[in-house]
């Protein structure tokens, strides 16, 4: 009882503290409220998604229409357009590099985890805020600083980083090798350091909050799958990003202090560099030890969001709740022991290759369990096709399509042919890029009412969905064929090679599809910003959902619930429970209020407690 008393005292103190008037700066800029920070992450993420998307159009133009003149882009790109109206080859590489960096880290890590972990964790577990609002605020502002540095690097004379988003040395280590490896690369490294600090601060906060600040009754087996996904994502980040720090730090020393961790026996223009004894493969090991968990950091939150949306809109409990948690955990653990499948052709010991191949194939099992459970949740449900639901189903479709090609690439023998071709590009853009992006967009459509108190327009949502869905498949599906034919990725031009001329029309088609897909995103942007101010006012629980966030006021203040935090009595997936009055029973409804729908064991559990403790409990409860 003493413990409970302290907590009550703490809670009231907390509310007092939050009540006083806040200035514009503390409320909207240096805010410590998890909801505002989530929106800051979302808006920044959308900005970066727009930048990254537009960059992809620039290099798609080059790939699809190599003969076209890009003179009309000169007002924007200036000297990066050559005299003959072509894209400077180095600038093409810069665009590819920045597109990858921005999308993987700034959009699908910070924009996705940052938005939804921040927004949903306190609201869904029943907490007033994150464990440390201050650290949370720092997390955003470190991300902001990182964004500013990365953004400035786009405009410097030598250009931004050009060595690919994986920044393999020696290319990224030697400014003599490519102009982007000068100042641009330095800024890339600085920006990433800030980014990692931001991710660490966020991740520590997410884990601490989920473990320590759950409301009464919110056991781990009653957590929504979104929270499980965010939790495991944060753990992955916490374990893998320090390794990137190590990799980046050594690269910084190589670049700026003359050490030889990654550099050895390099000749430039016939002259030998002094570095000797380094190993570029070492960088790949360190990088991919982060890099592979990173792709799960990107996809797991999207899978969590999808679980929640599919269950809610199928009006059915999620199929295999514990199997979902188990497969999330299995993916999280396995993600740390498969990194070398990115390095099959680096001259690795073939025996080691087959070990990593086996481990990689094992990941197919939990992934397939998840997909199976999504489909069985949909099976014979009373499906409501909201835009969020469509995007979630789209995610499942991408996850299957991209997952199948993953089995090709995971095989060390096939990878010799497919490595570094457009097949790889197609694979990860579908399974990780588009799937995670669809999960993020689904989350925005689903939780927009909670974020801004208004609804997004569903009809524009449907147009957005169909254009994106068809668009993504028309962009990335043909890339499989181009890849099997042997087109290497990151090449500026294919017209110089007779062998690759035959696919010029397919490349043009991809570019046109990319433009259509991108134009659909402007519908979303309009819908998003218009609805913030002019959207239809939302009801309390627009999707008839079970989770706790819908019990909070429509526009929650700092502190989330004005009175006491609701208590949780059941798991979050009691949809269409036989006998129930409505087709959903929120988590904060006790079993004793729903005798008509309780399963025998649930009725039993209430009775048992009654017999065991008798009247004494009544006194306890009123005290609290």
């Amino acid at each position, binding site marked *: 009882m003493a413990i409970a008393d302290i907590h009550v005292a703490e809670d009231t103190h907390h509310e007092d503290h939050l009540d006083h008037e806040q200035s514009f700066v503390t409320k909207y800029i240096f805010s410590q409220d998890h909801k505002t920070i989530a929106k800051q992450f979302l808006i920044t993420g959308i900005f970066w998604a727009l930048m990254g998307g537009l960059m992809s159009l620039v290099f798609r133009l080059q790939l699809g229409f190599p003969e076209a003149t890009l003179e009309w882009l000169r007002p924007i790109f200036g000297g990066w357009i050559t005299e003959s109206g072509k894209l400077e080859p180095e600038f093409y590489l810069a665009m590819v590099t920045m597109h990858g960096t921005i999308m993987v880290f700034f959009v699908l890590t910070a924009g996705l985890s940052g938005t939804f972990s921040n927004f949903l964790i306190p609201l869904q577990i029943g907490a007033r805020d994150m464990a440390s609002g201050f650290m949370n605020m720092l997390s955003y502002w470190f991300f902001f600083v990182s964004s500013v540095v990365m953004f400035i690097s786009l405009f410097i004379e030598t250009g931004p980083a050009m060595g690919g988003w994986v920044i393999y040395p020696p290319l990224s280590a030697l400014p003599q090798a490519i102009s982007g490896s000068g100042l641009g690369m330095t800024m890339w490294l600085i920006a990433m350091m800030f980014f990692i600090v931001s991710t660490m601060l966020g991740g520590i906060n997410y884990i601490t909050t989920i473990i320590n600040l759950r409301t009464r*009754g919110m056991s781990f087996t009653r957590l929504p799958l979104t929270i499980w996904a965010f939790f495991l994502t944060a753990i992955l980040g916490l374990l893998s990003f320090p390794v990137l720090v190590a990799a980046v730090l050594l690269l910084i020393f190589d670049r700026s202090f003359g050490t030889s961790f990654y550099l050895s026996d390099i000749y430039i223009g016939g002259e030998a560099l002094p570095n000797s004894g380094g190993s570029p493969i070492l960088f790949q*090991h360190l990088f991919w030890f982060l890099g592979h968990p990173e792709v799960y950091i990107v996809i797991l939150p999207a899978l969590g969001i999808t679980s929640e949306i599919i269950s809610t809109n199928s009006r059915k409990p999620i199929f295999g709740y514990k199997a979902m948690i188990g497969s999330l955990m299995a993916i999280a653990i396995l993600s740390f022991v498969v990194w070398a499948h990115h390095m099959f052709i680096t001259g690795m010991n073939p025996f080691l290759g087959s070990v990593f191949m086996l481990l990689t194939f094992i990941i197919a099992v939990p992934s397939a369990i998840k997909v199976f459970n999504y489909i069985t949740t949909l099976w014979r449900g009373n499906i409501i096709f909201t835009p969020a639901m469509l995007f979630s189903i789209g995610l499942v479709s991408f996850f299957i399509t991209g997952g199948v090609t993953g089995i090709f690439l995971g095989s060390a023998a096939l990878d010799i042919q497919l490595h570094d071709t457009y097949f790889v590009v197609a694979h990860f853009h579908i399974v990780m890029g588009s799937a995670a992006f669809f999960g993020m967009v689904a989350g925005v459509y689903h939780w927009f009412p909670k974020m801004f108190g208004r609804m997004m327009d569903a009809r524009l949502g449907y147009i957005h969905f169909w254009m994106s869905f068809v668009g993504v498949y028309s962009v990335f599906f043909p890339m499989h064929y181009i890849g099997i034919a042997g087109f290497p990725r990151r090449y500026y031009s294919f017209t110089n090679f007779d062998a690759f001329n035959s696919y010029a029309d397919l490349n043009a088609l991809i570019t046109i599809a990319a433009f259509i897909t991108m134009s659909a995103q402007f519908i979303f942007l309009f819908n998003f910003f218009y609805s913030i101010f002019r959207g239809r006012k939302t009801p309390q629980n627009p999707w008839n959902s079970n989770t706790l966030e819908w019990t909070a006021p429509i526009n929650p203040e700092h502190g989330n619930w004005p009175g006491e935090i609701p*208590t949780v009595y059941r798991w979050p997936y009691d949809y269409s429970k036989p006998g129930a009055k409505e087709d959903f029973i929120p988590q904060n409804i006790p079993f004793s209020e729903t*005798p008509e729908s309780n399963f025998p064991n649930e009725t039993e559990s*209430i009775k048992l407690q009654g017999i065991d403790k008798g009247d004494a409990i009544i006194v306890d409860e009123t005290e609290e």
Partner: protein
Amino acid sequence: MVRDLQIVEEPRRPVSMDPKKFALWLFIVTIIMLFAAFTSAYIVRQAEGNWLDFSLPTIFYWNTGILLLSSVTMQWAYNSAKRDDLKNIKTAISLTIVLGICFLISQIFGWGMLVDAGVFFVGNPSGSFMYIFTGLHGVHLISGIFFIIMVLIATVKYNVHSKNILLIEMCNTYWHFLNALWVYLFIFLLLNR
């Protein structure tokens, strides 16, 4: 009837730990991962050959002792805080700070001895790794010393006592961890030369 049933259904408050203490442990996990990455990189690189062999500076044996002693004084400070022995807290904490700074200075002497032995930061990765390990550990140790100074200031303001133990407890944990980290690095370097 329904009302009665509702009352007997008492949900349990989830088990939880102090969030700050928990966050500190997570921070420690990130440092462990950072050094795990470096030491693994060391082993991977060493296995490739072309590796400069040299013996560790003898001062490392001595300053490991200094650091272990500072762990003892830190624990002494923490125990004194639990017993509300304010005078001893101040003495023990000040001693810990002095020992910590002594260790850092002796690390710099250690670097001097490495240079004298012809092992430079720029050169064979074998030597570079040596400087990275000691340097990064030193940076973390400086953060630990700042933490202890914070505790010392709090102690002077009578904010550290048996009823307000969290700060010094976290400091104690962090300092022990940093010392254990050095012992790990030292043994690692001894075994993998």
